């Protein structure tokens, strides 16, 4: 009730006044929803529109077809299915490795006390202030140098791109994960240690099952971040067959704009589905993560 009383004068608030306020709220809600959703509705509509043009397009196409989706999957010049697989492959592999690396580190930072621990934690916090992609010139050169000796980790390879992504993972998520480890009572693992459990057993048998929610959050945030990453993928990958969605999708509308609008819309919808689905499924966790300070890429 306190919230209701916050913006209406408590003295003499009349029924009529309340009704007008409510109507105002609903009208604003409708305007906001139109603003927020009309691009999405429009893309859905365009993806089923056979005319493949945006001029004079009615919102519900008179004769909807799947032609745009067929074109999307049968274009040898712009191999959309390949890009989709590349994006999923990169995001899934990086997510798994990143979660493992971060969990190991967070466990150590939460449970052990050692010299330099505080400095190390602060360095991790400070270093993530500089987004990795800003070092694009240096990263490009480093991959070029590595590629001379290890061709599968050089420029224009998924392996090299993954290394760059993994380099940034520790900085982003260690604090988030360590905070969750800290919230689990130490008595649990101290009791196990007294009973003769090794640190690895404490970690694997006792703590990992308990921290599963934060593993999900970190995993989702990493997946979404890598799936959406644009700059490094754009700089490192030069073969069309190696592109990710973020680099490739744009090609549909770069030149002959109106001609490819329908195909682009179909591709945009398919590209957005994995992330939007994850978002809505894990909304509860992610909203918590958002308010605690992570900004999505």
């Amino acid at each position, binding site marked *: 009730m*306190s*919230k*209701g*009383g*916050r*913006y*209406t*004068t408590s003295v003499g608030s009349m029924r009529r006044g309340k009704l007008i306020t409510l109507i105002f709220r*609903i009208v*604003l*809600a409708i305007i*906001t*929803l139109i603003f*927020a959703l009309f*691009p999405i509705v429009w893309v859905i509509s365009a993806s089923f529109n056979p005319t493949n043009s*945006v001029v004079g397009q009615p919102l519900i196409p008179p004769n909807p077809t799947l032609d745009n989706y067929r074109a999307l999957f049968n274009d040898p010049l712009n191999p959309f299915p390949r890009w989709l697989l590349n994006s999923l492959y990169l995001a899934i592999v990086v997510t798994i490795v990143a979660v*493992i690396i971060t969990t*190991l580190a967070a466990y150590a930072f939460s449970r*052990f*006390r*050692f*010299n330099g621990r505080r400095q190390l934690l*602060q360095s*991790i*916090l400070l*270093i993530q202030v*500089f987004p990795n*992609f*800003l*070092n*694009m*010139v240096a*990263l490009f*050169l480093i991959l070029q*140098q590595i590629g001379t000796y290890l061709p599968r980790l050089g420029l224009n390879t998924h392996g090299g791109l993954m*290394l760059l992504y*993994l380099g940034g993972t*520790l900085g982003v998520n*260690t604090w988030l994960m360590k905070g969750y480890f800290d919230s689990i009572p130490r008595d649990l693992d101290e009791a196990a240690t007294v009973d*003769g459990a090794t*640190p690895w057993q404490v970690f694997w048998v006792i703590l990992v099952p308990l921290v599963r929610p934060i593993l999900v959050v970190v995993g989702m945030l990493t997946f979404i971040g890598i*799936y959406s990453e*644009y*700059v490094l993928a754009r*700089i490192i990958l030069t073969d069309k067959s190696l592109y990710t*969605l*973020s680099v490739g*999708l*744009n090609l549909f509308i770069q030149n002959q*704009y*109106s001609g490819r609008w329908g195909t682009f*819309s179909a591709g945009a919808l398919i590209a*957005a589905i994995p*992330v*939007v689905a994850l*978002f*809505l499924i894990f*909304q509860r966790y992610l909203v918590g993560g958002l308010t605690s300070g992570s*900004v*999505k890429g």
Partner: protein
Amino acid sequence: MAATAQKGPGGAQAPSGTSTQPNSIAGWIVRLAALAIIDAFAVWLVYMMLGDGVWQLAVVLAIVTIGINVIFLRPQLYPLRWVSPGLALMVIFVAYPILFTVYISFTNYGDGHLLTKQQTIEQFESQVFLPEDAELYNYAAFRDADGNYMLWLTPRSGGQAFTVTPGSEPVLRDGEPPDVMDGFTRIPQNRIFGELTALSALRFGTDEDSFQVSQQQFGVAAKYEPLYVYDPATDTLTNQQTGVVYSPINGTWTAEDGSTIQPGFMVTIGAYNYSRLFTDPALREPFILVFIWTVLFAALSVIITFSLGTLLAIVFDVPEMPFRRLLRSLLLIPYAIPAFVSVPVWVGLLNPEFGIVSQSIKAVTGGWAPAWFSDPFWAKIGILLIQLWLGMPYMFIIVTGALQSLPTDVYEAADLDGANPWHKFQSITLPLLLITVGPLLVASFAFNFNNFTVIQLYNNGGPPMIGTASPVGHTDILATYTYRIAFASGRGADQGYAAAITVIIFLILVVITFFQFRYTNMLEERGENV
């Protein structure tokens, strides 16, 4: 600190004398084997890199490898073993690149200066020229099963014929070239044209007496002379044909009259990349414009999304609002869609000829619509519109969360004093809100300060500025400006200058972060757990 005292210095558990002893012998062997494999691999890699002069990366890899060995061999460093995989990746791919960026910013690295000095000398020394008085030869070409070539050369002046292969002394021959000799098969005259590119790239004979097949004059070979000779004593290259002497000046081989030859090589050039940024008007003016727009873009993005998000949160987050949960889920969708999808969609909606937004505006105004992509002002408005759409849900969510945690008694006191809603918002809600979400607003500012994706996908930073020394557009922010200089330029990449701008971005981020940490007292506040 109590924990340290309790567990003894340096580690959480004693490494020996516990029930883990048998386990740790097996573990010890596995550990040594794993370390041996890592070390062997690293030694090979570092050795190869040092051989090629890639010493910076070699040093970093060596340090990381030594670090891993120390961490896994010293029981006192046991906790660091858990951190080492992430730490190694972070050192190589985040920390080292930052330092490397700083280093590059003090070099002339870029198109025309991509090679090392030794590589350019080798390249110049491999160039040859045909002296005017050189003797010309007719040749017959041979090839063996492995693809090696041999030439049978007959002087046009009528001397003794000889055969020659790359890297060996000529062998005198008599008579006409046979079809098969010494394992080589003669290439028929009508096939030679197809092999000409491969043939003419080879030097037959020793370094002193090298014969080459002419690519311009078909059927002719000649003894070519090296065009350039490098003299290590004077550190100069001399052109044997013209006699001009070139000395290296700032990574470019320059003659006394100022003429230069390409390619140049990479050297450190001091603070030149920084000084020309501040002294060269053709660089300074676009840089200042880009800098102002970067700050404006980031600040306005935060202000408009925060304002609208706060308005929506206040209006919608009340008990009497119907469908609150559904509304929140629907408003979340724009935020969930990746920017690489939603920005091109908006570009389509705004398209001046086909886009529905521009079409609708034209219908209302009778034919006029903003030039969303060709006019600097409207391009910026278009970007801010997209930013509003992208960022509003985030602000809505965090402000909703923050409002719920505000104390209610202050409002009751204000009600007693007869404050009106606006007064209450201005003097209670907003200040309290800013304290709660302030750090997130600063983070959002820092994020948008480098929001590469939105700018690049909207219009590649365009419309382009006219008459600038480096390629730059009116909507470019510092991060995309860097990219354009380093990679996307038709006028020659200038990575050294790009790195200098990156370093400037870093300095700005340091300032932002300083304020953010001051604001949140993050480091002090978490002191207990740090």
